[in-house]
């Protein structure tokens, strides 16, 4: 990859880069980066892992949520250089080789998305919740997802999706999408 020659504008400043090694979805990845590169851009532009979305870019929406050493963080609000030597999981790291992660399955079964833009962030925050609390109440799910904004769904089916995934992860038979509809007006259409 290294180039022996790169022409630059005559007034361009010398840019200091740093070498980082970050474990992303289980694989160690190394890169030369500028310290000001955000983790979200490292993943998207650098590694082409475009499942992590940048929504608001102002620490409000949570679409860029990834797991940093297992903890959900907004990847637009930390620098990639800070992840040197650490472990990052993106939405691409959720599924197994052939099957979906139960959280992904839940979003499919209970129609937890419409446009899908917030979905990766929702799923990463939900994954972190279910690791800490395998049997959350609806309130606990809403609380845990309160840093993730969705402009389509009204959250109803997102919450159902997470409860579906929780049941599945506990080894229980998750209800079918239609049966999740508790209020008859805003439920899944399965």
């Amino acid at each position, binding site marked *: 990859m290294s180039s022996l020659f790169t022409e630059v504008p005559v007034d361009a400043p010398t840019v200091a880069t740093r070498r980082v090694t970050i474990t992303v979805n289980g694989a160690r990845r190394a890169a030369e980066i500028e310290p000001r590169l955000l983790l979200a851009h490292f993943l998207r532009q650098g590694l082409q892992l475009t499942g992590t979305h940048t929504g608001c870019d102002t*620490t409000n929406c949570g679409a860029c949520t990834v797991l940093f050493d297992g903890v959900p*963080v907004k990847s637009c609000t930390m620098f990639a250089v*800070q992840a040197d030597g650490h472990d990052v999981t993106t939405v691409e790291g959720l599924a197994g080789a052939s099957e979906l992660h139960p959280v992904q399955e839940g979003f499919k079964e209970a129609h937890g998305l419409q446009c899908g833009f917030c979905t990766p962030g929702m799923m990463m925050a939900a994954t972190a919740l279910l690791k800490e609390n395998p049997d959350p109440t609806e309130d606990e799910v809403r609380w845990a997802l309160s*840093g993730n904004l969705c402009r389509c769904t009204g959250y109803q089916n997102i919450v159902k999706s997470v409860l579906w995934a929780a049941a599945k992860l506990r080894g229980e038979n998750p209800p079918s999408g239609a049966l999740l509809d508790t209020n008859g007006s805003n439920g899944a259409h399965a």
Partner: protein
Amino acid sequence: MFPSRFAYEAPRTIDEAIGLLHEGAGEAKVLAGGQSLVPMLKLRFANPELLVDINELPGLDYHRADADGTLRIGALARHATLERSALLPGKHPTLAAVAPLVADPLVRTRGTLVGSLCHADPQGDWASAVTALGGAVVAQGPGGRRTIPITQFVQGPFTNALGYDEIAVEAVIPAPTGTPFGGYLKLERRVGDFATAGVAIALQTNGPGGSVSTAGIALTGVGSATIDASAAAQAVMGGPLTAASIDRAADLAAEAAQPKSDHRGSAEYKRHIVHTFTQRILTRIVHQQERAA
């Protein structure tokens, strides 16, 4: 968005970090949780030449009580850790009430209490709680450590008392001397928004009558800095809480507020919220005392 260029160091010792700040001669900034600093860098409100990332410093992610009950919260104690802490609810109910209301759950996994105090945002939640509790910040610089009371530490909007080569290494909350009570209420338009108004109250009672021996009341988001409503706190001290003393404290807290009308509400509305929240927290404390009796 991305920030202007900066140099970056992640030192492994506090002395090394302080050395870097000293060499930076005022052009360096400490990066802890980064949940306020990184957005400010991206918006280019801040343009430091050097970021000194303290996240890799060992031994700062603690919160613990000394033998005498003094609570110490290290520079890397995250909001989320404090939210889950078993140490806070009994002895430090005001802090326990603040922790789950800071920003949103994702910000809370990274952001720190000490960083919030350093940021000195008039809408910061922790500064109000620490003010109500009479806490302090320990700063460490080339000459050693000094303890700065919170009312002197927060000097104005986004201005703290740290020297350019000092790091805020911990927050200190005095040990309760009586039975501690407290609460924090914040009005926000949605989770993660800045406070429209917030009120933090911490008090301690002594004796069977529940006489209030110490009290602190501080206000969030209704002035150019955290407001220490000490006159309001005085109004409930020296006797048990009564309907009259609660009303008096609420009046004085509303008087101490210096709100400005903006998109979050009119000045009058925010003053009204301060009044209501002060009354509500103190009334809840009375109910807690009744249940305990």
